């Protein structure tokens, strides 16, 4: 089990994360928050790129800083900005990273072929990455993160820059990978995690706001989310969430604490996007 124990990270007078306590066991954990909320700071601490100012991060009771390479051997990491060598083929690139990860050469070669197959890049394994699309590069990134068969897979905004088709494929892959390991994925794109995350971790004002299953998090807004095609009729405090067109009408989804919500609108089941907008767009109340 990976435990984040009362962790605070400060940079001078600025507190990036304050008193965060979390526990990660097998499954997919989504760190969901807007940009600048501290997701990447936590990810960087989990990958030992930076250290907590206060508190500790433990793997099975041992501090990860003390575990040093023993810990690093157990993690797979896909950074937010995944760099690569444009003139290398995926196979060459993965061989180099396998060496840095201390993998046996023969085993690494076998694993590289297997992983390129898994991420559907087997056909282009010997082609230079110069002409690869963002999605293909991201898949190379996933492959490198899986090279050491990590117990903990850490992905920082992995779907940024992917087209919808690639995003779905990526989601399915991550979902299957989370069956036998800890997968920690940071994102601000709700649809990436809504259906696959076992647990959603949310931050607000650099503090932990929620750590629960998507269903339980959505339950917070139960009875407060409605849809209407006449938003002008609402004369009580509400927050507009999303809009969509249906049969020539604009259907507006809104949240309100008022009991009159049901008089104007039709109650709907809240989803994670509603919760996200509700929590992070306080200023939108009118």
């Amino acid at each position, binding site marked *: 089990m990976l435990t984040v124990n009362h962790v605070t990270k*400060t*940079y*001078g007078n600025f507190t990036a994360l304050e008193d965060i306590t979390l526990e990660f066991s097998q499954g997919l954990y989504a760190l969901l928050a807007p940009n600048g909320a501290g997701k990447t700071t936590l990810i960087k601490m989990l*990958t*030992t*790129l*930076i*250290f907590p*100012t206060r508190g500790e991060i433990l793997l099975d009771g041992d501090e990860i*800083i*003390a575990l*040093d*390479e023993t810990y*690093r*051997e157990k*993690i797979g*990491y896909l*950074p937010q*900005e*995944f*760099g*690569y*060598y444009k003139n290398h083929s995926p196979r060459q690139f993965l061989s*180099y*990273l396998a*060496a*840095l*990860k*201390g993998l046996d050469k023969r085993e690494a070669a076998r694993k590289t072929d297997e992983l390129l197959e898994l991420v559907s890049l087997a056909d282009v394994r010997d082609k230079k990455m110069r002409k690869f699309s963002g999605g293909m590069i991201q898949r190379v990134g996933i492959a*490198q993160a899986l090279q*050491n068969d990590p117990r903990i897979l850490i992905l920082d905004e992995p779907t940024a820059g992917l087209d919808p088709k690639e995003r779905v494929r990526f989601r399915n892959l991550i979902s299957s990978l989370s069956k036998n390991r800890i997968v920690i994925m940071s994102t601000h794109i709700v649809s990436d995690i809504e259906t696959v995350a076992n647990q959603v971790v949310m931050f607000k004002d650099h503090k932990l706001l929620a750590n629960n299953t998507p269903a339980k998090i959505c339950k917070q807004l139960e009875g407060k989310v409605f849809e209407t095609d006449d938003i002008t009729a609402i004369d009580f405090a509400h927050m507009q969430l999303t809009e969509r067109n249906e049969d020539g009408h604009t259907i507006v989804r809104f949240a309100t604490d008022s009991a009159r919500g049901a008089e104007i609108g039709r109650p709907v089941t809240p989803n994670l996007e509603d919760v996200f907008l509700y929590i992070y767009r306080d200023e939108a109340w009118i």
Partner: protein
Amino acid sequence: MSTLNVNLTPQEKEQEISAILDRGLVRPKTLRRLFKDLLCSLGLRALFWDCGFALLVATVTLAGIVFLLAVTPIERSLATTFTLAPLLFLATQLSCETAERLGELYELKRTCKYTIRQITAFRVLTFSLVGVIFCVGLTAFIAESTTHLVQLLPLALSGLFLCALFSLFLARRLPHTLAGIWAGAIWIVITLTPLMIAGPQWEILLSNIPVLLTICTTIVSAALFLREITKLAFDKEDHTYAYGQSRN
């Protein structure tokens, strides 16, 4: 005699014993063992990956040094040797590090089993050995006699290791990613200023330093330099600003 009130099944006992052995019998990692592991696992090619730019800079530096030697009056050989001795090391090391830190893979490389910090430690040691070979060549080229060589070589080596130590010391402590470059600039200023201002007097001062003292300086600075490399390779928390990890 007291007995412990612990009831363990044979299987649990085995597990406990294994856990104790795992913790107790781990050989402490030395710099030598680490570098041996690095060489065996990564090989020279992976260890010096991304060093092409450094090689180019080293070649240009060598050409510059040859030019300087061609135009420098031979009567200032000691001052020239002392200043030039660490230049190849500095140029190679700093260009290699700069290229690495500015590279897009830097962050990822810091999370691998063999971190870029450990690889950097290996490279620094290698570049310093190349620096030693350079010093031998440089002094052999400049020396007019064996006595002159005996005076020049320890001075050049002390210059190399003092500068290398200073460079690594700064790089590990200053909260600036390119702190090592400052070390190079400071070295050039420190050694060139007396040469420019005092001229022959600086040469006389250097010639009056006993050879034994320069040998001792070389040994001590080389030992301290090795200690800095060890810290670079193994330090987990403090003094690692330039190599990516910090508490603040």
